[in-house]
């Protein structure tokens, strides 16, 4: 650890000097720039469903509208004009170019609420929260809803590239002769449809295969992955059992809990599963369907606001959105693992805010795979990674595992790509609010989400 571990408050952060390459601590935190705070009022999501399950006939628009309407009902926002709504989906039909605006129009919000779609793979929800928070901080808007949705069940399937080219040419043809000539170009292979895949375009490897390489690189054991998966299920089930999600989740289509949740799972059951990724690694193959997230359908939404807006409506204020950071890694030729960008984003974000891992009370590290979380933690604990890759004097540090994903995470809840950010932000905001103060300062939480394309988006929230 290279930074002080004393409690940090807004003025105290001025005094810090952090020996990292980003040595201007807190130079850009919102308070110092004289901008106002962006607060989290609350969130709502529908239970997440394994693909092909309860939501298999639901569209992204159905689910996003349901998440929005649940949020509207929870906070009395019917006919309210919100500053802006931003959401997105990773698997998206081309007809859904205005998915978020259409969901707003179908929701109980005022039709005069502007909306836009955004997409940053699995970090979509996080980027929506950070981008809208920044607009609130700058005073451009007073309220916002950040969301995300994904359906692996109702995924878009396109015509083949060959057929697409032929159909477009056909549309441009003028005479019957031209048309007949173009139609004669169609071959049987053109008729097979083109379904989306989780493969990285530049490597041809699926996300699971990429992570299998990273998991092996950081020597993460099968047992450690299974233990993390089991903890995720146990923690999520316990949180449901003590009604923690009652004001975060609205039942939909007969589902009131995430359908992937297996509260009665055991290490023995998890150990019995065969590896599904990295099978070329032979005995070193450790990633199973139990310690990887399944394809999932679901949607989430988070209500953000300025203090004044929330107070004027007598709405709760759970947490501040303190700061956010994106990072990307050069994964294409294997310099870093595909999902390792948060390992770089978190040190930068903490340094900028004059914080260390010890100043964080809750860690929400998205469990794309158990191996992703454990590889990230291993990199942070690795001296060489700290010095050569992060530019620190030693290892970045380790975290108290009792602070990690304490109410479960994606391995148990499932991972509808763009909806995960909203789930994490609303869950953490509520946890921080319940925790209140720690050592005389507001409780702090860190969210880390990895994304396709070698990207990652991380953020710090602070209790109110």
């Amino acid at each position: 650890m290279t930074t002080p571990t004393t409690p940090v408050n807004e003025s105290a952060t001025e005094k810090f000097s952090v020996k990292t390459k980003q040595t201007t601590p807190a130079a850009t935190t919102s308070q110092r720039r004289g901008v106002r705070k962006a607060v989290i009022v609350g969130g709502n999501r529908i239970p997440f469903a394994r693909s092909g399950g309860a939501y298999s006939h639901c569209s992204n628009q159905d689910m996003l509208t349901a998440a929005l309407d649940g949020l509207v009902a929870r906070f009395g926002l019917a006919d309210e004009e919100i500053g802006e709504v931003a959401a997105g989906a990773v698997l998206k039909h081309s007809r859904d170019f205005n998915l978020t605006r259409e969901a707003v129009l179908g929701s109980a919000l005022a039709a005069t609420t502007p909306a836009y779609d955004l997409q940053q793979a699995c970090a979509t929800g996080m980027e929506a929260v950070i981008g809208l928070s920044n607009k609130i901080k700058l005073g451009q808007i007073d309220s916002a809803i950040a969301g995300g949705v994904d359906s692996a069940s109702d995924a878009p399937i396109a015509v083949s590239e060959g057929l697409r080219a032929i159909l477009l040419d056909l549309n441009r043809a003028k005479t019957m002769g031209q048309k007949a000539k173009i139609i004669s170009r169609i071959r049987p292979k053109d008729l097979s449809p083109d379904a989306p895949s989780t493969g990285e375009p530049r490597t041809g490897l699926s996300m699971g295969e990429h992570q299998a390489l990273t998991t092996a690189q950081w020597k993460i054991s099968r047992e450690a992955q299974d233990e993390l998966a089991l903890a995720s299920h146990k923690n999520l089930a316990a949180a449901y059992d003590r009604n923690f999600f009652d004001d975060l989740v609205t039942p939909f289509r007969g589902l009131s809990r995430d359908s992937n949740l297996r509260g009665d799972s055991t290490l023995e059951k998890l150990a019995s599963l065969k590896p599904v990724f990295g099978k070329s690694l032979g005995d070193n193959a450790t990633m199973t369907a139990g310690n990887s997230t399944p394809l999932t359908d679901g949607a989430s939404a988070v209500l953000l606001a300025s203090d004044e807006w929330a107070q004027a409506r007598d709405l709760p204020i759970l947490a501040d959105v303190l700061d956010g950071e994106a990072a990307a890694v050069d994964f294409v030729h294997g310099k870093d693992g595909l999902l390792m960008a948060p390992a770089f984003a978190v040190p930068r974000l903490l340094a900028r805010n004059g914080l260390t891992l010890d100043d964080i009370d809750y860690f929400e590290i998205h469990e794309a795979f158990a191996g992703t979380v454990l590889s990230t933690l291993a990199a942070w604990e690795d001296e060489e990674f700290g010095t050569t890759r992060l530019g620190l004097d030693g290892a970045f540090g380790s975290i108290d595992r009792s602070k990690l994903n304490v109410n479960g995470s994606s391995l148990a809840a499932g991972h509808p790509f763009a909806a995960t950010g909203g789930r994490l932000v609303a869950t953490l905001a509520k946890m921080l609010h319940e925790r209140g103060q720690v050592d005389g300062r507001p409780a702090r939480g860190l969210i880390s989400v990895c994304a396709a394309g070698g990207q990652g988006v991380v953020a710090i929230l602070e209790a109110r």
Partner: protein
Amino acid sequence: MTDATVLTEMPSLSKLYVNAAASAAKSRLLRSSPTVALPPRAVEVRGVRADLEKVTEFAHLMGEPARDVVPSGYLHALAFPVAMSVMVQDDFPLPLLGMIHLHNQVEHLAPVLFTDELLIRAWARDLEGHRSGTQVQIVAEIHTVDGTALLWRGVSTYLAKGVYLPGLDKPTAPVARVDFVPPTPTAQWQLGVDTGRAYAAVSGDFNPIHLSVLSAKALGMRRSIAHGMYAASRVLAAVPQHKPESFSWEISFDSPVFLPATVSLEVIDHRTDDGVWLSSEFLAWNARSARKFFSGTVWAA
């Protein structure tokens, strides 16, 4: 109406249509003298639930998000087999096939969830003369299964064209036609020839006049026509955008929407100064001939 025939299960619409065709043939053969009174009994089915998959398809066809709350138009489709059972009773005085939908009025008193177990009751009332035949109203009610709360009530007015029953008064003179001047449309629907088949698939209403040119011609139509309830449901999908707990709507059908069609639509919203929705009026006409198709109102109640 308290006296009711209780059916043990939801009647099949396709069987009802076959029965209707058979009884039409029978009455032609026997030339039995028609009765001029309505059957005194209601028909009732208990323990009905909406089919979630059909509700989802219905909502998507109308262009609205599929919700756990069942669309008002779908409830009409859900109650329709019971309403039809009223009209295929042996002592029902009008032929079911070829009847024309004139008007609908619905009170949607409380949200109905797809999980709700329901009681559906329907009966006929107000058999009256009409300048071009005989009209009748079919009342359909949807209650909670224990019958303690009325959730939805629809009154459909149908016309049996060319059927004149002895002793029924007819209006003395046809209502004077007012020249219809189309306003500026706020929306336009392009309805393909498959519109009737698509609605039949989600609603179960396979009335031959909606399915194809041939089946429509067999019943005296020059082409197939869109279901009136398709039009009503499609308007209701977006009007109002946010449904209050209870609301009412009514729709009058002026002329059939022959398929394919381009329908021009005007919707006028009425709101309080605070932006709270009060009511909406809608009007639809043929974009090419400027002939009025249908009009109606949706209001918070």
